[in-house]
């Protein structure tokens, strides 16, 4: 019975794939009073459905590990259904329905974690619902302009109308992707969510905000090319959005560096990555949208991989703080490679596809002549190296720092299989940067009526600004590596393994097991001494939101005083209201 149910669950987790393969035409469902839900699959939605199809079964696998948390599985299925509805939506009502189902089912999934605290879960649901309600408000404004709920571009909105729509929709999607200063719900919820589910939150759920952000400009005529004038070689409004994205990336990157918990670090890194995507959407050219989609693809793969690896580490060691881990490379080698490939992709290093994605965005920024943005983005992406290094050094290298880390074993197969598959996919897309362009991205660009990027061959990424060849790069590097290693081993002389892990050059002393040799938690701490970074790290929005919550409670207390249990007071108020309205009327109208 249990096995059958698990199998069924896994099959359901493959539903995005099945949908992608079998969907043709469209579907329609009456809701109420002439509102109909139309389901169709646009190329853009198809792209995000592909991402979902990649992530869903891979996250489902670790969730199936015994003992199963059945409510989680049910909620996961609901979540998947909601997201598919959202992606298939041809009208705003089904979009919203999918959006909301996604919101509350992911919230309830978050509650399945034993670590979720009140502040986290409240901020998660309130921000997400605020996003949803802003979206609904936008939808209603849109409806009042067009008279129906279909997702299509407006005929000729006036500037105030367009600005209202942009503000409502834009805020909704920016909350979902978590740009500054609306990101506060992300780090703690990604951190406290059930470990496997964090992968899905970061990898897939946040992509729905990206989907919305890319969808948003299509609502306006010519918006992808220009909206509200041009700045240099790109849309002026997008320039603002791009800065929001890039500032998000920079701040989140530095915050990520200063984290001491693996999942929190990954959460901030998610914010930073989505910030890049926001920037690219802001640029809005064909190159940039391609870059945004590529980044979304890579981010999905990488974050699912990293979160699952980390989930495996947490499962096997019971530790999640950097200072409590170490030296897992010998105990969990496959997870080590998972994290290694993951951070290479995350940092955007060649030859993995993270580089291709960043290349497209960089080039699009040069093309738009927005060089200051480019510089800020470079700052974020080089600073990212530090947290990437922290992520691999602290758990896997150095010295084991806790009994859990000293005795851990390799993660169980439900954690390893997704990692291996994802590593394979990352290497594949790295070898063939044109593959993703040709198969996944160009159809979307054509669907959005933009110039496709085009790929001579799958091995090549070609743009008007030049490109590169992934196969040649990988071959050169591989051959060089083999040659160097071979030559090195051919040389005379022998290698000797150090006798003990404490056989180190340690300031002239001989370290022992008691010497604090692990640098995991401290890494990046000295960055605070750089004035700008120190300033960034001292800022935070938590105080503001806590203050807001406090004000609401104070208002509740104040208004609650009206409801004190004195019947005579209630009657008095009623009589006074009656008399006052009569008097007011008498004074105004003359009785």
């Amino acid at each position: 019975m249990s096995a059958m149910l698990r199998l069924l669950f896994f099959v359901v987790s493959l539903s995005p794939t099945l949908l992608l393969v079998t969907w043709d035409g469209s579907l329609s469902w009456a809701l109420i009073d002439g509102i109909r839900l139309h389901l169709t699959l646009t190329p853009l939605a198809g792209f995000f459905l592909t991402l979902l199809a990649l992530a869903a079964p891979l996250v489902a696998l670790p969730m199936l590990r015994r003992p199963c948390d059945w409510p989680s599985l049910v909620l996961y299925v609901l979540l998947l259904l909601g997201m598919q509805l959202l992606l298939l939506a041809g009208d705003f009502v089904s979009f919203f329905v999918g959006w909301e189902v996604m919101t509350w089912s992911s919230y309830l999934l978050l509650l399945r974690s034993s670590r979720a605290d009140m502040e986290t879960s409240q901020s998660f649901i309130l921000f997400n619902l605020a996003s949803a309600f802003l979206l609904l408000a936008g939808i209603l404004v849109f409806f009042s302009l067009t008279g129906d709920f279909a997702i299509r571009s407006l005929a000729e909105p006036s500037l105030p109308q367009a600005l209202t729509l942009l503000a409502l929709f834009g805020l909704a999607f920016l909350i979902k992707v978590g740009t500054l200063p609306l990101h506060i719900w992300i780090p703690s919820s990604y951190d406290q969510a059930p470990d496997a589910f964090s992968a899905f939150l970061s990898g897939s759920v946040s992509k729905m905000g990206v989907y919305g952000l890319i969808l948003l400009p299509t609502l306006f005529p010519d918006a992808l090319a220009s909206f509200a004038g041009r700045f240099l070689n790109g849309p002026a409004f997008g320039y603002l959005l791009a800065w929001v994205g890039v500032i998000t990336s920079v701040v989140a990157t530095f915050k990520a560096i200063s984290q001491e918990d693996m999942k929190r670090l990954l959460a901030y890194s998610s914010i930073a990555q989505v910030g890049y995507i926001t920037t690219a959407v802001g640029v809005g050219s064909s190159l940039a949208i391609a870059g945004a989609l590529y980044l979304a693809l890579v981010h999905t793969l990488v974050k699912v991989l990293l979160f699952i690896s980390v989930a495996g580490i947490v499962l096997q060691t019971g530790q999640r703080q950097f200072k409590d881990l170490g030296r897992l490379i010998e105990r969990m080698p496959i997870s080590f490679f998972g994290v290694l490939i993951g951070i290479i992709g995350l940092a955007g290093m060649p030859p993995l596809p993270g580089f291709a994605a960043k290349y497209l965005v960089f080039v699009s920024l040069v093309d738009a002549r927005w060089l200051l943005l480019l510089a800020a983005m470079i700052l974020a992406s080089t600073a990212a190296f530090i947290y990437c290094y922290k992520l691999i050094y602290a758990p896997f290298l150095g010295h084991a720092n806790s009994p859990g880390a000293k005795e851990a074993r390799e993660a169980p197969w439900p954690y390893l299989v997704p990692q291996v598959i994802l590593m394979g996919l990352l290497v594949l897309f790295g070898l063939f940067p044109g593959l993703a362009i040709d198969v996944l991205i160009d159809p979307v660009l054509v669907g959005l009526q933009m110039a496709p990027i085009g790929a001579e061959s799958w091995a090549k990424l070609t743009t008007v600004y030049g490109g590169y060849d992934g196969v040649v790069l990988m071959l050169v590097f591989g051959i060089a590596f083999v040659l160097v290693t071979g030559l090195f081993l051919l040389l005379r002389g022998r290698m000797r393994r150090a006798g003990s892990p404490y056989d180190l050059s340690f300031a002239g002393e001989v370290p022992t097991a008691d010497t604090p040799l692990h640098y995991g938690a401290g890494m990046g701490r000295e960055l605070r001494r750089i004035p700008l970074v120190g300033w960034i790290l001292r800022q935070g929005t938590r105080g503001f939101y806590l203050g807001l919550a406090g004000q609401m409670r104070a208002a509740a207390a104040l208004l609650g005083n009206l409801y004190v249990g004195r019947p005579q007071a209630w009657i008095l108020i009623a009589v006074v209201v009656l008399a006052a309205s009569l008097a007011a009327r008498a004074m105004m109208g003359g009785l």
Partner: protein
Amino acid sequence: MMHAVVDSLAMIGVSYVMGFLFYGFYRQLNARIQRRWGPSIWQNFFDNMKFFFKSETLSHGPMFFFGPMIIMAGAFTTVLFVPFLKDSTWLQGFSQYGNLILIIYLLVVGPLGNALAVGSSGNPFGVMGVTRGLTRLMGLEVPFFLGLALVMLQHETSSVHAIMAAQDGLANWGIVTNPVAFVVILLPFIAAQNASPFDVVGAPVEVYAGPRVEFGGRLLGVLMTQNMMMSIAKLVLVVDLFLGGASNVLVLIAKAFSLFLLTTAISMVFPRLKTEQAVDFFWKVPLGIGVLAVILTVWLPSWSA
């Protein structure tokens, strides 16, 4: 195929030879300025060979061993993706398959691989050095990339070949047509070369708390070799971008050497900065010049147009 192999080997050879000669010269010059005799110009070569033929090398595990291999492979790859000559079929490597942004990133691949080895050694001082290196990278990369972006924008391509081809004749050299970009990248370039005053990461007195603290013997030889080759690759890249490239090896050496002299001259006269000072400096001075350059060369023309 054969051509590619021979060409690649030639590039590696050229960069290796140039590398140890330039550094030998650097040590001589440094010594003379400090009124010492200094070692022979071949000294670097001797040192390198000595390391390579050490009979015993201490290792701290597989990753510790593979780190230097990755950095060496990274150096080879970088060298092979930088075109050494223009209008020539030789010394091109695989540069037509790459571009400027790729090269910038390739410069970092190796050091990051080595960082894994440092971490694997279990020496906290090594990791501290790596963190400093990455911090410095974070500082220097911003103005460096901004300067290069100005060049890319100028030529509307990220292909080094195309940029080189556009600089026929002295008047069209990048340093003449886009001097601000050169000014912007100059100091970060020095830092990228790991030269004074930004050399706190791998500086001799800091070795004990630097990335190389645990390396010895043949592994140290590998690190030394890749460092020299990488320096040459960067020098050649700047020559390609700003000094019009070179049509034969001699011109290449001459241009690279003059550039080397310039950077050395700057290096010699400044005292070493702490990491955070360096980063702060990069974000204030070169980046400030870069922002000015962007406003002057990108914003103003577009507004006046």
